[in-house]
């Protein structure tokens, strides 16, 4: 049935695009709504291909994989994945700095007072050390250790979560096999024409290069930066956030692995951007994200090649983007998921998370008929909130810096941040309190990690810390630090754990 009568039931879903977003969406919709009678077709074009980057993820992806019934060991083998406990930021607050934003908390709250408040009071004492000395996942990252968290909430080994780093070119095919098993039909071909219904402006069918037409009720635009339906056809508009996040290009190249297999992604700041290093089982992914206003493509490429830890495995690839989001992510009967919906640079590995969030919200609000303006408005409101809160968190990394060694950093340091971020920074600077929200990706421990890591050091601290005798606090800090160290020491070596897991899966 084509998208005609507003009262007709929505049953035929057409996903356009077979990258990470397209196949995740197809897998998610078919597993959850397939049993309810939904039919999903995916169109992808071999001649166009996928963006081929996007290898670092956040812990939420485990929930997605679990929901659609992915076996973890099989997934790790199929996508050459490694485990990830956080992101290391090098040279961000100042040149020479390094901190890790872990997937876990710092220390333990005591008497209702957050741990970092105690640490703050004594942070000047050498024996107290860095805040990250009190984070199990950070210590595990530094020591190259990994094992899944303990189920026992009393154990310090339960105080973290984990994500994956995988080969982007292997993940979509892996999702494809899952989706096809759940009945998703795949069509290969390039969409060359889009038919819109006159009055409603809804998409009714797509025409492929070979002349085939594909009808549908609801279309999911996963065509990446093309935004084939959402922008080229429906002109949903774009909120451009480059005023705050001016990086607009990336150059990417994989290289041979060298050194130990680290359970974390590294983001190293440079003169006009930053570079990523993502360790996989069979290679290392690298890329340099930069602002073309401040750096030429050639310089960006040579900075990247100079710091590779092994021989490059292909020619460097250039990518261009504008940071921001589609003004209406769901417009008429088109929902944009993935890069077609917007792009926030990959500093905190948030894009795949946003794909996942787009899928879950769509499932929650899945329309019955085309008479779904309310569902659409709620979807857009929710996704806007997600994007905006992530945006603020990303800006923090650039704006809260002491770096003044390049025009780029001077621009970032002195720009006017969004009010929402300015207020958060002021609150933290005063006494280390974090302005909380409930609906957003990055919660209090993440803000603390990055604020402290970026040298936003609170002037004071929670006054209740003074209620406990100094020697008692210092003793507690020393005990906790030693406990974290020894617990991290008891964890397995990341490479050894991974190899045992994947060889078991291969044998099966």
């Amino acid at each position, binding site marked *: 049935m084509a998208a005609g009568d507003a009262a007709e039931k929505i049953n035929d879903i057409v996903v356009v695009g077979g990258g990470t977003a397209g196949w995740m969406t197809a897998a998610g919709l078919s597993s*959850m*709504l397939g*049993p*309810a*009678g*939904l039919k999903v077709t995916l169109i992808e074009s071999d001649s166009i291909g996928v963006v081929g980057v996007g290898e670092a993820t956040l812990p939420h992806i485990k929930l997605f994989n679990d929901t659609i019934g992915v076996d973890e060991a099989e997934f790790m083998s199929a996508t050459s994945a490694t485990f990830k406990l956080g992101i290391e930021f090098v040279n961000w607050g100042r040149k020479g700095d390094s901190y890790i934003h872990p997937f876990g908390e710092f220390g333990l709250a005591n*008497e*209702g*007072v957050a741990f970092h408040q105690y640490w703050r009071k004594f942070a000047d004492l050498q024996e107290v050390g860095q805040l990250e000395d009190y984070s199990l996942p950070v210590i595990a990252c530094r020591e190259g250790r990994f094992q899944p968290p303990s189920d026992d909430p009393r154990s310090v080994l339960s105080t973290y979560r984990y994500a994956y780093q995988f080969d982007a070119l292997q993940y979509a095919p892996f999702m494809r096999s899952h989706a096809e098993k759940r009945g998703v039909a795949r069509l290969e071909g390039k969409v060359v024409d889009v038919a819109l219904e006159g009055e409603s402006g809804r998409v009714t069918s797509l025409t492929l290069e070979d002349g085939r037409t594909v009808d549908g009720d609801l279309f999911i635009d996963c065509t990446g930066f093309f935004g084939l339906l959402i922008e080229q056809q429906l002109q949903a508009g774009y909120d451009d956030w480059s005023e705050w996040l001016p990086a607009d290009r990336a150059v990417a190249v994989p290289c041979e692995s060298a050194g130990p297999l680290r359970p974390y992604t590294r983001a190293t700041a440079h003169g006009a951007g930053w570079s990523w290093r993502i360790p996989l089982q069979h290679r290392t992914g690298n890329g340099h994200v930069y602002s073309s206003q401040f750096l030429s493509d050639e310089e960006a490429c040579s900075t990247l090649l100079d710091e590779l830890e092994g021989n490059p495995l292909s020619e460097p690839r250039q990518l261009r983007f504008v940071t921001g989001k589609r003004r209406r992510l769901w417009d008429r009967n088109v929902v944009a998921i993935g890069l077609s919906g917007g792009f926030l640079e990959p500093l905190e590995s948030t894009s795949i998370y946003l794909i996942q969030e787009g899928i879950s919200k769509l*499932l*929650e*609000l*899945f*329309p*019955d008929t085309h008479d*779904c303006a*309310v*569902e659409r408005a*709620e979807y857009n*409101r*929710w996704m806007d909130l997600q994007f905006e809160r992530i945006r603020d968190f990303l800006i923090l990394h650039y704006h809260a810096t002491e770096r003044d060694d390049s025009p780029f950093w001077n621009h970032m340091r002195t720009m006017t941040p969004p009010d929402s971020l300015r*207020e958060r920074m*002021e*609150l933290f*600077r*005063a*006494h280390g*309190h974090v*302005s*909380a*929200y*409930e*609906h957003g990706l990055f919660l209090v421990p993440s803000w603390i990690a990055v604020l402290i890591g970026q040298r936003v050091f609170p002037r*004071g*601290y*929670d*006054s*209740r810390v*003074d*209620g*406990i005798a100094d020697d008692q606090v210092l003793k507690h800090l020393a005990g906790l630090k030693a406990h974290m160290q020894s617990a991290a020491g008891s964890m397995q070596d990341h490479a050894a754990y991974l190899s045992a897991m994947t060889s078991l899966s291969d044998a099966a």
Partner: protein
Amino acid sequence: MSSERILVRGSALPVALVGAILARRWSGKGKELVLAPEREGANASTVIARPDHKNVHAELGLAIESLAQGAEAVPVLAVATTCGTGQVSLPFSPYGMARGGTDFHHFWRRAIASGEQPDLAEFSLALRLDRAGGRLPLSTLAQLPLEFGLRMDRLRYIEVLSKRATSLGAFIADDAGTDADLIVDCRVGSNRSGWIEDRLLIADENDIPGLEWQICVNAARRFLGLAAKLSDSETERREYSRLARAESARIRDFRALLRDPEPRETEHASLSRKIDLFEACGRIPSEDFEVFGQPEWLAALLARGIWPKRYDRLADSIPDKQLRSWLSSMQRQIGEITDRSLRA
């Protein structure tokens, strides 16, 4: 280190509750907490503590059994209040059982769409038990998958809390004057709240059972979450007031849904969203810092005659026959548990 003095004054229950929570977490060297409660009216009767009581009382070291003795605490599974169309019972626990991540009421709505007429309240163990009116022993309740609040004798609860507050270091004074670094004014019943200079105002209407209790708890927690030197708390004051405003907006929406003659005509986007989305597809969107739970919103929406036009598509994932047998077996089980619990 110079000392700091907080004076908590106003209605007796809020003063005792806020006082006890502050005494537990804002005390020690250099901190003085003075409570100046007004005399509670002679007709003071009961107070409802919402399900959050478990956390609050655990923090204060008040076991539920001791509250049963000391404050005549009895469990409350739902509260009744007035609404534009009469009375409504607001349950603290979800209706029925969610399935595959989809809330029960979508399955119920699907049954209605296929011509059946089940009463949603029949699938709420909380409402069934509440309606049956028996007194459930705490030991029985502990075995059931239910959230519950407590109904307590107001004067005795005040006594328990005041005792706890003083044992944690607070002072009770009849005439404490106004000499303090911070005055916490508890005026539940008026409608200003926020932290302005040296006044922290805890206020709202007390017109929904349990609200007064929750407002005090949230205010004390909010203050503690922003604790800093009182003479240097300007940023924290702003943040406190922002959060208090958000809370007031959530309460305002709920109250308007219950009591406004035409809640659909509300000028508040957050309430329109709840009404519109629920009506469109049965989902109830949540905002940051909700005060009332989803089951309470659901009860209030239905009581105001706001019905979902359709159910969630995810509820279509089981065949009709399976749906019918699942619903009837759930209804039967709930009936059995209700009977057994009342006999226990």
